[in-house]
């Protein structure tokens, strides 16, 4: 498809922006002015609408396709939550208005949403306090690790120098730990895919600042020794970090804070149904136990005794500002709308159904993947596509074959500790017919791998472009229109 710039022609009018001229401003001396205007497209409004509508139709999305993308929790994004977030009384508020009058009295509605969202997330996770400021999961992780560092500093403990991370962790875990100045100690997984307990015990010592874990882990397995791990880490004054990427499995079932986790980030764009947006914006709120409360980022929203809300900035031990304001407010409203819709029963019902869908799909697919043993998983599961190699087929080919058959592929080649990994997470918002159809299509693809592997190597053929040359992209580095 042509680029918008290639559709441009001099003088074509776009949207008329103003009509009333109120005065002529004084000329600004030329040394402050650019020599030529920026070369933006000159395209009619109707053509712009057609261009972006046509672009949208080149995408797969939840609104158009099943997305069994492991570890990403691609559930349906309710339209009502969108409608709530688009209320003009919320979208038209300037973030500095709380500072103009009465300590937040101009923005009581928005502050109420922030406060109630914090309280509900605290209750759901069993943690004492939440900050809503982190703007994505990885941003939440970095905030969490900064909180760890602030805590140890404040304790006067300067020997903490590393964070323990299992090898099945998301790549952002070690990246966040490094940024906050800690070394990363990686622990291998045992045969069940859990952090190897003996290796962990050996690595744990007085210098351990903390441990970052998902539970259930990236293989969809619940670590039954989690309590032991928490106790051991606390014994050396380390902090337990809960990566909430997989929270959808356990919402309402268990609370990380009650088990012994001290810090937790949640991906609202996963468990709390806010849209992924083709890569953001997300939101990654962070919860902490009481002893970490003083270090939370500024500002803090508080409830006054008469029931109004106010922002506090005077927090001397705070790590400071990690976002300009209060986080991705528009995303937080969607998550709030989702939580109040669900309520306590809906929360448990949601994780029940997410886990049921995953187990059903796992059971129906396991023999296709040559997995003899029937086992329970949580909200997602991982199979290896190694058996396809004998046909010269890789899971990448399976992924592309799925695209041709109307499904977004599962996550592949992650986690890194499983060869030819295929990671599937159906979520609770898919019905039985969709799950069955997916099984049928997987079966068809595996049969094709045996009978005509080339057909899979050539996939996808139904998309606007076939497999793209990524090496060429990196070599040529054409990153903008000339």
């Amino acid at each position, binding site marked *: 498809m042509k680029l918008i710039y290639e559709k441009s022609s001099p003088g074509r009018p776009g949207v008329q922006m103003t009509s009333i001229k109120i005065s002529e401003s004084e000329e600004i001396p030329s*040394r402050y002015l650019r020599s030529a205007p920026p070369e933006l497209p000159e395209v009619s409004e109707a053509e712009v609408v057609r261009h972006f509508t046509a672009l949208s139709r080149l995408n797969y999305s939840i609104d158009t396709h099943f997305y069994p993308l492991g570890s990403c929790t691609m559930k349906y994004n309710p339209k009502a939550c969108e409608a*709530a977030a688009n209320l003009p009384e919320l979208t038209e508020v300037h973030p500095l208005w709380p500072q103009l009058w009465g300590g937040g009295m101009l923005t009581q509605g928005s502050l109420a949403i922030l406060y109630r969202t914090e309280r509900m997330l605290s209750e759901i996770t069993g943690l004492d306090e939440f900050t809503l400021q982190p703007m994505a999961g990885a941003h939440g992780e970095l905030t969490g690790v900064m909180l760890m560092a602030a805590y140890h500093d404040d304790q006067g403990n300067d020997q903490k120098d590393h964070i323990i991370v299992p090898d099945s962790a998301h790549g952002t875990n070690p990246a966040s730990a490094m940024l906050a100045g800690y070394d990363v100690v990686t622990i291998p997984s045992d045969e069940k895919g859990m952090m190897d307990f003996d290796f962990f015990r050996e690595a744990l010592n007085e210098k351990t600042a903390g441990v970052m874990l998902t539970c259930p882990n990236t293989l969809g397995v619940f670590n039954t020794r989690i309590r032991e791990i928490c106790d051991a880490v606390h014994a050396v004054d380390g902090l337990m970090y809960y990566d909430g990427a997989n929270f959808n499995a356990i919402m309402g079932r268990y609370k990380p804070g009650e088990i012994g986790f001290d810090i937790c980030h949640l991906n609202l764009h996963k468990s709390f149904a806010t849209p992924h947006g083709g890569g953001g914006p997300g939101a990654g709120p962070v919860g902490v136990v009481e002893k970490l409360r003083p270090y939370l980022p500024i500002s803090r929203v508080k409830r006054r005794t008469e029931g109004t809300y106010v922002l506090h900035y005077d927090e001397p031990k705070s790590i400071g500002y990690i976002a300009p304001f209060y986080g991705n407010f528009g995303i937080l409203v969607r998550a709030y709308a989702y939580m109040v819709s669900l309520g306590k029963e809906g929360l448990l019902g949601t994780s029940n159904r997410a886990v049921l869908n995953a187990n059903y799909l796992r059971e129906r697919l396991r023999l296709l993947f040559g997995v003899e043993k029937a086992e329970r998983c949580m909200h997602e599961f991982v199979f290896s596509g190694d058996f396809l190699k004998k046909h010269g087929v890789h899971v990448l080919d399976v992924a592309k074959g799925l695209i041709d058959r109307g499904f977004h592929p599962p996550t592949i080649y992650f986690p890194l500790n499983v060869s030819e990994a295929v990671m599937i997470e159906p979520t609770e918002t898919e019905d039985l017919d969709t799950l069955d159809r997916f099984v049928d299509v997987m079966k068809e693809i595996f049969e094709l791998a045996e009978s005509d592997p080339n057909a899979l190597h050539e996939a996808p053929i139904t998309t*606007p472009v076939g497999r793209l040359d990524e090496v060429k992209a990196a070599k040529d580095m054409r990153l903008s229109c000339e």
Partner: protein
Amino acid sequence: MSKTPFCATSEQDQEIMFKTLGIESFDDLFAAIPDHLRADSVNIPDGMSEMEMMQHLRRVASKNASHLVNFCGAGFYDHYIPAAVNALSSRGEFYTAYTPYQPEASQGTLQAAFEYQTAICRLTGMEVANASLFDGGSALIEGAMMALRHTRRNRVLVDEGVNPIYREMLRTYTHNLSVEYAEVPLGKNGIADREAFKAAMDDQTGAVLFQNPNFFGCLDNLKDVIDEVHEASALAVVSVYPIALSHIETPGAMGADIVTGEGQSLGLPLNFGGPYLGFFAARKKLVRKMPGRIVGETEDGKGRRGYVLTLQAREQHIRREKATSNVCSNVQVCALRAIIYLSLVGREGFLEVGRECMDRASYAWHRLMEIDGVKPAFNRRFFNEFAIRLPRSAKTVVSELIEQGVAGGFPVGRYYEEMDNLLLLAFTEKRTKEEIDLFATKLESTLNRVEEIV
């Protein structure tokens, strides 16, 4: 009513699924979680129907003041958003898509990102841009960190004219990431103090940060001071306001190495602080150190043009602890809104929006200078925002104006203690002549009234 909204299976479906699994109930699925770890209860309210939820949200939202005429900017502006921006960016094919790791199924997202990157290069006068970062503040921080990585130095030097909210964020990150942070006080004329910069740069300074127009709205041509930065073998990072780039000199032409900014004004609502749009551009030679997602053009086997996420070897999902940054997301929908906005207003419309902002600010300047007791804070070189000096605390004046329905600017003393009488005022194409006149009248009577009391 269903107690689990948005879930797709019926009880009959669930019975079939239970049978397939050989289980009796949901509880059997969670046998792996030991009893003693399970939550006793979750104390949140009962669920609501869609209608009840919307009524509840409307009721809560109505507690916000929404009648105010807004002259408060300070880096975040109340611009008009053409209807087509909402209509197009609300297409589910865009906003319910995942990150485009499967490029054949994501060409819409990828091409839009490529078009966005192009627009950012053209606005800033730079060679490469990424697909966006969280907001203008985090983009500036990433710019500073990138400059330190490139120069292998550890000190960030920041002009005091950089938005104080961003400077607060910079202090947080540099403190927690063990980077040395230093500021250069604002020059007397409201712009970067050349002599002070020369004196403050040392052989550990790797990143020097400016903003243009700066927090006070003052325009500058930073070329000479950026030359000095290069003389000291450091990199210059300039934060900009994109609407101003319709007319004012590009940071690229001033010699900046990295350009960042808040893209909220390009078709995003104020939304109480987010989601916003951090844009990020740089010199081509720095591209391999650039943080965030980058989209590049390539071809498929049949020679058809297509777009992919490229240079991914920099990123955390491959590099893990050796990544250039831990940021793994962009704000694609926000970047999409920006490219739709820029396409809709187009080359001429963008100039017009910029011109109307300048005209309104200029009109207001003359109107306000007629008021007894109001004085310019700095010089007259501004785009759409400027600071005035009042005879008393701007904070109290602003709160008196609020009671008259006007968000009459931002009191600078909130962030600059010694500037308690300074009021920062922003003007966009949305403000009418009548509103500006009304504001001037109210400001005048507010100032007079107190003088009478005194």
